[in-house]
């Protein structure tokens, strides 16, 4: 399959190339490849080095009022926490959101690329792209890079003419349509809370609380998730950020510390 290189800048020249220097600029855009003796081995090593374990928790679900999307905000490198304030919900356009799990650079770059493609579609066809179409664009791009070490586990959530839409797309080339997804190392814990509390006819506040609780429980159990639980809602008028609560404070909000009853107390002895 032809690799998608629309994300790279190209420099079209009007004049024919005069010499070698200008000749480079008018060549077809492509990613630079390293010149090493053992390209396959080098690529394998590079993949292993970059291969993150998708240490994160993101979730999204469709309900009566639209789509609820939530994520934590921790970035970890092995055991070290590199950041507690990463934006994992990416705003592709005012009515579509993407979640980030896996390699941060991969997710940010390809989501922005998807945003560009969606805008071009709007300009060319005079109508917004559907969530189905947008997720298919992304899935095809990722499939063309299959095996090269991209690490992307994303959910595309949006509202189009057919109503709310939610797709799971990953760097292995998979694309699934569904109503409830959770991605990342904390996803089993989030699924437990999400699946037991889910009803189709939740109100927006109830759904937001369910999403927040699910992320909180995942951050409690999973070491690679934490920071801030962000909750976004996608409705007929586009997405809106509902809350961003620090998970450390959420714990004591859900499970307040009650002062324990004193069993034995020492008092100063009076007198001689």
């Amino acid at each position, binding site marked *: 399959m032809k690799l998608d290189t629309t994300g790279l800048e190209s420099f079209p020249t009007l004049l024919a190339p005069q010499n070698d220097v200008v000749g480079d600029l008018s060549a077809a855009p492509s990613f630079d490849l390293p010149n090493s003796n053992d390209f396959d081995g080098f690529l394998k090593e590079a993949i292993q080095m970059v291969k993150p374990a998708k240490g994160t928790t993101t979730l999204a679900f469709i309900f009566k009022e639209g789509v609820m999307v939530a994520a934590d905000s921790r970035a*970890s490198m092995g*055991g*070290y926490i590199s950041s507690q304030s990463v934006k994992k919900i990416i705003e592709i356009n005012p009515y579509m959101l993407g979640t980030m799990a896996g390699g941060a650079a991969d997710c940010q770059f390809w989501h922005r690329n998807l945003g560009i493609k969606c805008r071009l579609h709007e300009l060319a066809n005079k109508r917004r792209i559907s969530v189905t179409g947008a997720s298919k664009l992304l899935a095809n791009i990722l499939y063309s890079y299959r095996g090269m070490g991209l690490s992307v586990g994303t959910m595309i959530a949006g509202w189009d003419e057919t109503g709310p839409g939610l797709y799971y797309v990953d760097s292995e080339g998979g694309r699934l349509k569904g109503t409830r997804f959770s991605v990342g190392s904390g996803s089993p814990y989030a699924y437990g809370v999400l699946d037991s509390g889910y009803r189709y006819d939740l109100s927006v506040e109830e759904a937001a609380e369910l999403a927040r609780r699910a992320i909180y429980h995942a*951050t*409690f159990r*999973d070491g*690679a998730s*934490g920071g801030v639980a962000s909750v976004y809602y996608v409705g007929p008028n586009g997405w809106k950020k509902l809350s961003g609560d620090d998970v*450390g404070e959420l*714990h004591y909000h859900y499970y307040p510390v009650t002062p324990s009853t004193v069993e034995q107390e020492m008092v100063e002895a009076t007198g001689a």
Partner: protein
Amino acid sequence: MSIFEYNGSAVVAMVGKNCFAIASDRRLGVQLQTIATDFQRIFKIHDKLFIALSGLATDAQTLYQRLVFRHKLYQLREERDMKPETFASLVSALLYEKRFGPYFCQPVIAGLGDGDKPFICTMDCLGAKELAKDFVVSGTASESLYGACEAMFKPDMEPEELFETISQALQSSVDRDCLSGWGGHVYVVTPTEVTERILKGRMD
């Protein structure tokens, strides 16, 4: 992840004015999954001697049971408690006995010796002693702990100030480590009393 990072741990001990403080996190995990948030890592040998064991939790518990056994025998024979320096040598010897199949723990020992002089030391998993005059650290968060302690430590702190310092150093370091945290456990020991406190921390 290495075997030392299997359960996750963070331990620190600091010296103050005629007192010492020893603190640990409370998480027990299996790689990234958290199993317990009330795991005990600091153990009392006698009223003026504490040992905290970081690293593999099963080895920490087994090693502690062995040490308590040896100390009880010592108490019966010598009719007194062990001095911290002697205890440190005992731990070092026990660890080196297993030189070619070691316990995967790094102990931190803190006690009040002769004249109630504070004594702290740490060891690697083979028993190499490192005596320090100010603070010792151990565990998955040890690099962060070194930085935090270096910045926050002052010599000759009173027990209250020492408690604040060690708690802040512990909390800020474990907040940068995925594998430790979920609360804190601090013992502050002076010649007359032992204060045990549980810290409220970030539970993520």
